[in-house]
């Protein structure tokens, strides 16, 4: 479907080599390298302040990195931009902005529209059907400040989905959402995966990692480990990632992990 993927049939969706980011003098992300396999759901895990959001933003060129390289489907981010979708942390925008849910979702099409051209019927229909997919069709005309936190999250998700990207970055899509919304989002992620897309999700709830994700990245300033969930999501590596802040509770003979 995509010309680019024919050119680089074997190129990984995301390859990060030696990326280092510093806001002031001290590095908050240091020499991180990893490769994401295609068609997987990947969790990015680490304590608060570990640099997860920073790593995502640096990958997308939203904050400058002081060293390292990022390659997306074998090319630079600039060239592959249209194949990347990003769901930022919800707090990053002014929710009192005069716009409604449908309009926010349509913003996901702006990259395809190009300059000056306004979104038309096609964009509207696409946005509407995507809102339906995330269970928000009834709220299409609602001013965005009148949506609950979980609903706002769904709108952001819908905006990323209409981008029709191949590689998605999501910063804490489950923050502050209830179980029903979480299930709905997970179902969507499953659909994306089935369609061969790759999704990198910043995730905090360690108890659901094994259930939801195929692949994990453990980050605490440096990359502690990266790999398939079965071999990487282990108590030893988690201990290394979270330090003393992690309590490992054993119940019913099965190990449960509780992050602080």
């Amino acid at each position, binding site marked *: 479907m995509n010309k680019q993927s024919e050119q680089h049939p074997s190129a990984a969706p995301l390859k990060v080599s030696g990326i280092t980011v510093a806001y002031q003098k001290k590095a908050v992300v240091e020499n991180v390298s990893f490769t994401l396999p295609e068609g997987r759901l990947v969790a990015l895990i680490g304590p608060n302040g570990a640099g997860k959001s920073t790593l995502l*933003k640096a990958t*997308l*060129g*939203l904050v400058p990195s002081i060293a390292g390289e990022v390659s997306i489907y074998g090319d630079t981010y*600039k060239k592959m*931009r*249209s194949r*990347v979708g*990003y769901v*930022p942390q919800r707090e*990053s*925008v*002014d929710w009192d*902005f*005069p*716009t*409604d849910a449908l*309009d*926010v979702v349509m*913003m996901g099409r*702006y*990259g395809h*529209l190009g*300059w*000056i*051209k*306004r*979104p038309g019927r096609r964009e509207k229909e696409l946005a509407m059907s995507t809102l339906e997919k995330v269970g928000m069709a009834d709220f299409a005309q609602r*001013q965005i400040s009148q949506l609950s936190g979980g609903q706002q999250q769904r709108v952001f998700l819908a*905006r990323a989905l209409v*981008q029709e990207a191949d590689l998605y970055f999501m910063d804490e899509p489950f923050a502050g959402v209830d179980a029903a919304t979480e299930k709905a989002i997970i179902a969507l992620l499953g659909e994306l995966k089935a369609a061969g897309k790759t999704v990198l999700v910043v995730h905090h709830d360690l108890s659901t990692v094994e259930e939801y994700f195929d692949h994990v990245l453990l980050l605490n300033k440096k990359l502690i480990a990266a790999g398939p969930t079965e071999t990487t999501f282990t108590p030893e590596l988690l201990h290394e990632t979270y330090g003393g802040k992690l309590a490992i509770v054993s119940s019913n003979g099965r190990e449960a992990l509780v992050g602080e």
Partner: protein
Amino acid sequence: MLDWLISLWSDPNTRWILLGCTLLGLGSGVIGSFTFLRRESLLGDTLAHAALPGVCIAFMLGEVKSVSLFLIGALLAGIAAVLCVSAISRWTRIKPDAAMGIVLTFFFGIGTVMLTHIQHSGSGSQSGLDKYLFGQAAAMVTGDVYTLMGVSVLLILAAMLLFKEFKLISFDPGFARGIGLPVGLLEHTMLILTTVAVAAGIQAVGVVLVAALLITPAAAARYWTDRLPAMLAFAGLFGAISGASGAAISTLGEGIPTGPVTVLAATLLFAVSLLFAPGRGLAAKALRHRALKADYARTANTGALEAAEGGSRK
């Protein structure tokens, strides 16, 4: 009253001035909506105050009073001021709002010194430059009105063509950058348009108050709608009404400056919006709350009555 309106309209000169100020208000209101939504309201004020030394230098170099020349002076001074603000907030720990406060007052101080100097020099006393503090629309000539018209058309055209892009960088600049929009370039374009609006409005409204024409109509418009295109339309309308009233009332008598009247009109519109706008206005909110309360009390009462009667309508 009617006589006055008719006499306003029959004098061709006044008619031009009225038209110019209306268009100026329209353009400023539209472009100011983005400034308002980006929470950069103080920026408009900084640009306006910074324009004074620019206008003075333009006069000293050209020795003539020409709106287009002043426009260039104000534009350059505004850009210098913005560069100062970003330099201060980048290289020091001072936050942008404080940096704007510093730059705004500094530029205005220099401007006032220059203005006093010009007033006391020979050619200056006739310059009428002091009118630039509070604006004197009546002093405009046809050429000035043409400049105002051109500027307003430019502002409205830019806002229409780049509507989608301006909306996105105002709402979510991070996402805009993510999909490949040149956010920095667009921000600078918007800044230059704002500067142009301010510079064009100086003669009519004056450096001290011209920022109000950017912000107050936008703030009022926000009460009437939750949709951006409608908000731009309302802001343009409110700006146009303010500009027209300012020009009309100030032509009534010699010496009434246009700026304060314009700002009073804009503020009046804002107050009306705040109180009476449907939906977001205070009165509508109070009414809605009361209706809800009464409604709830009624259903609760009937519920209680039914319970007391020991029966229910199945």
